[in-house]
């Protein structure tokens, strides 16, 4: 009798324990939601390190205003130095050690590609990679939601503007010789095809290149009247500067990753003036109510004293706004499946970035997971301020 009771008690403990385990979601407790992000605080892409810091301050503000259904966000950010090997090691360590509910943003195509399969195999949601790569959504993945405008579409919007509005006839591209640069190159080629045109030059730039004279000589030789720059910030500045020195003065255009005009103006010593960029969010110093709100509530209260209110810092909020909306809509019984279901219900979402629309997962429709098709174009003015050239452009 006594033995039977012991067995019964053991079974109860086992099943109750199992039931509790089955209910709990990885990275969620009664009081916390664990969210991770990588971001280059050092290394060649450190100029984009403020994205992860912007997200961190945004989470601090959410926690200070009550959290999400009573839970605080615990933010796990690490510096991967834009090194995919470090990204993978850091993500695995946090995922398997701490247990992360979902991943937010994360700078870079190559670092993101290093962990994409790992996260998707484990069915861990990842929202708003801070890179406009086609790899996130081609083919689409159930747990990966893109918020950044595709580089491919940015390049198309810039080339379209150059050809149709500015009447440019000879377009060349200088691109970083990796997937980031090649996404921009493909977009430019496609848009020119649509206009019955071809590139007059395509010049690859290697990450380690510091002397841009050979590249600019090739561009000058092509007699391009518009040069699209899909490189790192420092390469872009060096190309524009070297071109000026060589008396080569085409219209330069560039990707949203080079659209932080105060920074670009400073490091180019004013030579960035006149460059046209695509962008992924409202301008930080604009009168947009959302931007003013975040500047006052998030940046002024939570940013460190060395931080600068700029496009990349704001990007850390832009890419995560839909995630926060879905977390709130998922209610207090938070699970990954509920969260994904709420992400899929996001339509017509307008924060400080482009309009975001998701759909129920369809493996044949990349726009079920690529939330935006919009970008707009801005031109850099003498003092690093931006002039809006277009409204939001929607590309199919």
């Amino acid at each position, binding site marked *: 009798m006594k033995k039977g009771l012991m067995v019964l008690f053991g079974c109860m403990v086992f099943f109750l324990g199992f039931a509790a385990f089955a209910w709990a979601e990885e990275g969620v407790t009664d009081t916390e939601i664990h969210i991770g992000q990588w971001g*280059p*605080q*050092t*290394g*060649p892409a*450190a*100029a984009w*390190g403020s994205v992860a810091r912007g997200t961190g301050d945004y989470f601090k503000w959410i926690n200070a205003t009550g959290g999400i259904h009573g839970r605080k966000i615990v933010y796990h950010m690490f510096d991967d130095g834009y090194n995919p090997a470090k990204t993978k090691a850091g993500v695995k360590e946090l995922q398997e050690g701490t247990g992360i509910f979902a991943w937010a943003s994360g700078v870079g195509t190559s670092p993101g590609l290093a962990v994409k399969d790992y996260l998707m195999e484990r069915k861990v949601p990842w929202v708003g990679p801070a890179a406009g790569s086609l790899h996130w959504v081609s083919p689409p993945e159930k747990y990966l939601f893109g918020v950044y405008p595709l580089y491919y579409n940015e390049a198309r919007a810039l080339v379209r503007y150059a050809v149709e509005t500015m009447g440019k006839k000879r377009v060349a591209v200088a691109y970083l*010789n990796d997937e980031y640069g090649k996404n921009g190159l493909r977009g430019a080629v496609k848009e020119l095809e649509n206009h019955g045109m071809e590139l007059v030059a395509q*010049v*690859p730039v*290697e990450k*380690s*290149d*510091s*002397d841009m*004279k*050979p*590249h600019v*000589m*090739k561009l000058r*030789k092509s007699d391009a009247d518009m040069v699209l720059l899909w490189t790192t*910030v*420092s390469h872009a*500045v*060096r190309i524009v*500067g*070297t071109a*000026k*020195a*060589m*008396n080569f003065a085409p219209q330069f255009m560039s990707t949203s990753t080079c659209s932080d005009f105060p*920074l670009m103006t*400073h*490091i180019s*010593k004013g*030579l960035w003036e006149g460059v046209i960029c695509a962008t992924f969010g409202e301008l930080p110093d604009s009168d947009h109510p959302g931007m003013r709100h975040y500047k006052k509530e998030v940046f002024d209260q939570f940013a460190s004293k*060395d931080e600068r209110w700029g496009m990349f810092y704001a990007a850390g909020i832009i890419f995560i706004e839909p995630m926060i909306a879905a977390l709130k809509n998922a209610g207090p019984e938070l699970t990954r499946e509920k969260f994904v279901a709420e992400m899929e219900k996001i339509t017509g979402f307008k924060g400080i970035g482009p309009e975001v629309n998701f759909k129920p997962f369809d493996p044949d429709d990349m726009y079920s997971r690529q939330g935006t098709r919009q970008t707009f174009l801005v031109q850099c003015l003498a003092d690093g301020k931006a002039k809006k050239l277009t409204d939001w452009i929607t590309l199919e």
Partner: protein
Amino acid sequence: MVDFIQMVVSGVAVGSSYALMGLAMVIIYKTSEVPNFAQGEMALVTSFFTMMLLTTFGYPVWLAFALAFVFAAALGAFLEFAILRRAKNPNILGTIVITIGLEMVLLGLVSWKFGAEHKTMPFPIGPYDSFIIGDIFISKLETLTLFSALGLMILLFFFFRYTRLGLAMKATQQNSVAAKIVGIRTNRIMMMTWGISSVVGATAGLLISPVIMHPFMMWDPLLKGFAAAVMGGMTSLPGAVAAAYLLGIIENLFGGYVSIEFKSVVAFAIIVLVLCFKPSGLFARHYVKKV
């Protein structure tokens, strides 16, 4: 033809910063037979220190640069005194590992103190100011770098050949025990060598800084400078400089006529070829010891 001349001129221009880094490495190698992989980061620390003097404290350029050279010399001497000398009879491999460790510490220090965001240093000559002769473009800043490299090379050449200190440095490299016996304070010589080398490297850093500054800015010049030093034979000052210019020109011609994609790799392909066919370098004398 214009393109060819432009590529050669650009090659010479870019070779100047390689030459300065190559010279700095050769100076230490001549005395201790150690390739100093912290050379780039020593220049980096001095460059950021100078920028701080210029922007935070508002010092005039001449004063900031003068203090920078003093700082560079002190930094080199300090690292030798405080780190290298403390190692207990390390072999060459051990010393290389120490310099790599130093490189990481200095890089981390700059990232921590000055942040990783890109910056530029104020300088009287703009980074893209240039002379245009016919259709050929020559950067003013790179012209200054060229004259600095040649000037320092000549100065160092005469220093090593005709001054007592220079001769003592050569003696320390050739046989440190014998040098000690004849009364040369080899420890002091090593410290001075590191100081002089640091000043030469800092000159490269200071002339790169007006273009763009970030914690990784010295990697490319260091690697190319090392390539030039190896090509030149590691102990020859004019050899390192000539190899640096050769490297710059080959890189540019390769980028212009063969493949721009593999332009950066060509330097290392040349090292492999040189080490295969002339291991002592293109310009150094090959010593054979009888045993």
